[in-house]
């Protein structure tokens, strides 16, 4: 049986209720700082261009301000929720599996982790929806809500499967000690060959999906798995092996999405 390290999970236990609430508010404020730091440079650059360069009226200005506020609030809650609910247990599970699990459970967990975190990735949800709108407008799929929804979901599932596959492959590589450079080069070679045969209309979406996956949820949990694994096997370097998982995870989505495009056309 595997034991979970519960030390860092029960940090707040044994403290008074008031202290816990004030700790919670402090954490929430910290998440708000983080999300506003993400948003602020964008707002500044856009404001500069609007005021100095373009000098044109902005339609639906109120809606825009409301939207920015919702993004800020949403990102704050999202990050806070990840920090309190998901990351501690996900990370300690990843460590526990990496250190003492049997290989089959470890590989199954690796796949599930890659798949589950990618399906919930906000940037991917947004981009897949946009891709389905554009594809429908181009007349490749019927332009109704059901067809667009299933196209977007298909896209997300392809990316999620590919990330799951990538993490399994990466874990396997760490266990076997295969050289990472050769595997990444093989991956690039496959991408080049698939680009030659895939329909031109899917290539842009496929290339972009590689970057979309390495976003908010996936990276911390997958890195925890890689570092846990590398530090429990002698002769492995946590820096190199932890990074290998992410490198694979941004490579395989291109292949899987191109394959999705080939099947769909």
């Amino acid at each position, binding site marked *: 049986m595997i034991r979970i390290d519960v030390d860092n999970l029960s940090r707040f236990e044994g403290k008074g209720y008031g202290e816990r609430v004030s700790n919670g508010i402090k954490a929430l404020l910290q998440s708000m700082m983080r999300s506003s*730091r993400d948003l602020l440079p964008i707002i500044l650059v856009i404001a500069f261009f609007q005021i100095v360069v373009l000098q044109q009226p902005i339609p639906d200005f109120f809606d825009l301000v409301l939207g920015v506020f919702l993004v800020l609030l949403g990102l704050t809650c999202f990050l806070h929720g990840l920090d309190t609910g998901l990351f501690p247990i996900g990370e300690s599970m990843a460590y526990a599996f990496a250190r003492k699990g049997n290989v089959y459970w470890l590989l199954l*967990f690796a796949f599930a982790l890659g798949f*589950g975190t990618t399906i919930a990735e906000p*940037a991917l949800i947004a*981009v897949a929806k946009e891709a389905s709108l*554009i594809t429908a407008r181009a007349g490749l799929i019927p332009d109704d809500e059901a067809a667009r929804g299933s196209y977007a979901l298909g896209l997300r599932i392809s990316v999620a499967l590919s990330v799951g596959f990538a993490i399994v492959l990466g874990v396997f590589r760490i266990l076997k000690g295969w050289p990472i450079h050769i595997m990444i080069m093989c991956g690039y070679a496959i991408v080049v060959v698939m680009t030659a045969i895939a329909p031109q209309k899917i290539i842009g979406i496929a290339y972009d999906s590689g970057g979309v996956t*390495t976003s908010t949820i996936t990276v911390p949990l997958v890195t925890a798995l890689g570092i846990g694994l590398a530090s429990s096997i002698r002769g492995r370097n946590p820096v190199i092996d932890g990074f290998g998982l992410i490198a694979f995870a941004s490579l395989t989505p291109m292949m899987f999405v191109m394959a999705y495009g080939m099947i769909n056309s």
Partner: protein
Amino acid sequence: MNTIWEIVATLSGTVLDVLPIALIIVFFQFFVFRKPPPNPQKMLTGFIYVLIGLSLFLVGLEKALFPVGRLMAAQLTDLEFIQGSAIGGAPGWRDYYWVYIFAFAIGASTTIAEPALMAVAIKANEVSAGAIGVWGLRIAVALGVALGIALGTWRIVVGIPVQYFIIPGYVLVVLQTWVAPKMIVPLAYDSGGVATSTVTVPLVAALGLGLAENVPGRDPLIDGFGLIAFACLFPIMTVMAYAQASTWVNRISRSKQK
């Protein structure tokens, strides 16, 4: 009122998005570890925060980030705005220079302030024993992202297929991997992902699609995507180039001292 309904409608969708990860944790917790999660109450509140946050974020995205990306693309490619700088005739790619400047500014500003990049830069300084400066690396990454997005917008304006840039880019990255100092390679690859934060990705995607919709003769489906791929690829090159350059400078100054 409309917005509230939108949020409620999005909420039901987000439940399905977050469900797999909840099921995975519950499954492994009960069937493999065979005991309840150590702190179920806290986990549950965390998940509720994630649900609400994701829904608000997605609605806000539709209301703000996507429209703003599109609006900027439309206004910057507007003929009347361009005519101010170019006289008569159809605009050539040079006349869209404000687009490239905007793309560069968005890429540079979002990257230089990124907290994740700070951590990477400090670590790079440590493993290189001071040869790679913290600020130098941050500027290298920001420059890479900014150049990547700017070049990506130029590609959309001109209409060259995306793979003509990305595949040679990969070849270059592979060659650089060969010659660059070994300890920087993982950090260089990581820096590619740093640029693609949850806020930047939708905005940059909308900018690309808006450009492809507004520049005459471009197809959004073929030309509109690809900016994110550019933003991920270019910092890998600039970081390895920077590491290499700083090793050379170090070597030269050391041999001079002798």
